């Protein structure tokens, strides 16, 4: 259902331990222009819940949190433009 959204950039943080999925994603989002979309691939359950919560808090727009297979998730976030 979110196939039509085109990601500007993809970040694969599968396998990473706490809190690297969040830290790397937030650092990447910070450097992106307003309206650009970051696709995050992750498999750490805590971050799947924490990342959207904090991305929204920093003004970014969470477009989708999709479960792929098992713990593998795909999160799409539109950058707020913090640069």
């Amino acid at each position: 259902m979110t196939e039509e959204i085109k990601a500007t950039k993809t970040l694969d943080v599968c396998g990473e331990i706490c809190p690297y999925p969040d830290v790397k994603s937030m650092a990447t989002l910070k450097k992106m222009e307003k309206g650009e979309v970051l696709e995050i691939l992750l498999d750490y359950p805590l971050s799947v819940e924490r990342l959207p919560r904090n991305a929204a808090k920093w003004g970014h727009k969470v477009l989708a949190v999709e479960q792929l297979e098992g713990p593998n998730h795909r999160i799409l976030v539109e950058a707020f433009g913090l640069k």
Partner: protein
Amino acid sequence: MTSAILTGLLVGIAFGFALQRGRFCMNSAFRDIVTMKDYTLLKTVALALLVSMLGFGIMAMTNIITPNPKAIIWGGNIIGSFIFGIGMVLAGGCASGITYRVGEGMVGAMTAVLGLTLAAIATAMGFLKPVKTALQAVKVPAEGSSLTVASILNLDYATVAIGGAIILGLIWWFFARKNKGGEVFDAHKDASLTDKIFKYGWSWFPTGVVIGLIGIVAFPLSAAAGRNYPLGITSGWLKIGQMFMPSVPFADSLKWDMWLIVGIVVGAAIAALIAKEFKVRMPPGRMLVQTFIGGALMGFGAVCSTGCNIGHILSGVPQLSIGSLIAGTSIVLGAWLAAYLMFVRPMAKE
């Protein structure tokens, strides 16, 4: 003996299940405040402490338990726990966090647990033992007696625990009502109850209540098995490590706290399998080294301080032990220092 296996395992399975579902981790709880200003897990920890404190107080009043607060060990509580706090940030999880994630299939947690176990053995009986002895040399008051908030106030434990839990709970409720925050992002608001329990992560409130209740149930069951203390992690891993040591009688390892650890890993694995969250996750190689070193610092610190974050914070603070309050503060400060150096400063530079 048989009952120790049974109750240790069952409490462990329940604990592991709740840890995995609630993503309960004190490392995240303390670290997230400074790295991402996220207070969710901190609220979970605080709630679990209040629930346990109330339960311990009621059980002490009705003579179901005899509180057994840890004694103050200045060097261990201040320095050992501070090193523990640094270690858990490197390890990517607190003692209970890395234990339940073993059941989730996280290889980084397995190396952390290995580091913790080896360092705990080295500190308890190996080449690091002189360091531990030196750190534990200063004991105020004398060994065997233990200072609590209640004993300082010259009041009965049950009164202070029950009264304190109710007063702190009311203060929290009052302030939470006053500053109701904005809408919290919840991807599974409309999910069914079964899905909310078994498929998606629990929110902070039920997690805090359930973890607190497990601590309450653990206390009398562990005491019945001859170990008068609620939950703890490090001593169980130490006993698992000692199984491989010919110098230690095998039977010495088969204790309640060891079965608790086995239960946590099994319980977390069950929870992760039902939720389809089990996966062998291999981090980059240097991360395995980092988590091993982090785990080793935790094992050293916990043995020097006679407790990890579970023994001191989840189990010790509700017993109002001053030693546990000092150790808990040191764990938080160590975690903040490591989080600042590893995450806050590098991110601000970019």
